[in-house]
């Protein structure tokens, strides 16, 4: 347990606290274009419900004060009420902080060279993905639903050549604008990596044609 905490607190990790001035594995000439999180509205409902839950102990105290006024004078029962309310408040406060942290640690960074996706699920689950812009083939923005339309937030799906998995920016603000900017950045980056992209395309063509040749001919009846 203590070694785990020491590891968490030490600075030996290749990707420590994220700093926009010093991104992990920084590429020369790279500039941050977008720093995205889910839209604030996605966490508002959770936040409001936690605030209601946090005020519940006050409601219990008010109920006890009005219906059982002698409880505050009871030297045995009142300490138990205080113990219970303090524990309830502490754990709800912790869960609220963890929920905020879960929102806060999910980040998508778009730079002039690449896209960084950092997703935190729970306390001990963290996924960091990186994608070079010139490898992107398709960018789709989706705004679906009443709240999404009113507050202008939605998903941006990024598809790369040959990759089964997609990069998805979930519930980010102004997805159409983000998608448009990413496509522009991809075009600019592709010009810089023209030769590399050509080689990749040739390699793909070769593998496709080889795949066709190796398929067995259909038997004639």
């Amino acid at each position, binding site marked *: 347990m203590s070694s785990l905490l020491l590891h968490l607190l030490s600075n030996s990790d290749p990707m*420590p606290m994220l700093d926009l001035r010093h991104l992990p594995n920084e590429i020369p000439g790279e500039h941050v274009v977008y720093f995205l999180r889910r839209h604030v509205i996605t966490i508002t409902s959770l936040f409001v419900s936690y605030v209601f839950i946090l005020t519940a102990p006050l409601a219990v105290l008010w109920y006890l004060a009005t219906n059982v006024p002698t409880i505050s004078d009871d030297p045995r029962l009142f300490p*138990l009420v205080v113990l219970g309310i303090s524990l309830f408040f502490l754990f709800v*406060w912790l869960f609220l902080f963890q929920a905020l942290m879960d929102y806060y640690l999910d980040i998508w960074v778009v730079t002039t060279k690449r896209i960084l996706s950092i997703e935190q699920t729970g306390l001990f689950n963290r996924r960091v993905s990186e994608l070079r812009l010139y490898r992107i083939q398709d960018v789709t923005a989706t705004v679906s639903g009443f709240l999404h339309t009113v507050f202008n937030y939605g998903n941006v799906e990024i598809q790369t050549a040959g990759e089964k998995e997609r990069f998805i920016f979930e519930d980010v603000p102004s997805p159409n604008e983000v998608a448009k900017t990413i496509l522009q950045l991809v075009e600019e980056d592709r010009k810089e990596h023209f030769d590399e992209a050509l080689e990749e395309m040739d390699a793909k063509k070769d593998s496709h044609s080889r795949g066709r040749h190796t398929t067995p001919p259909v038997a004639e009846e």
Partner: protein
Amino acid sequence: MIPLSWFLIAWLILVAIFALLALFTIAINTRYGFASLGTYSATAIFLLVAVGVILTTGGYLMTVDWSQSLNVIPSSAPTLEL
């Protein structure tokens, strides 16, 4: 009759569990979070409120006489008389 101090011990154990979870949460937040004033201030607010609640509760609990016992079965319960 349950000694009142048992409840205090249970409270202390649960507060210790809270402290451990809070430590992990803060460690992960400050280690993997985005280096900004927001990260530090959110962590500071969380810590201040949590410490404030524990100290206030602790201050009250110091005044309680924990040598008492709690009777879970009320003495006014009907008894069978032969």
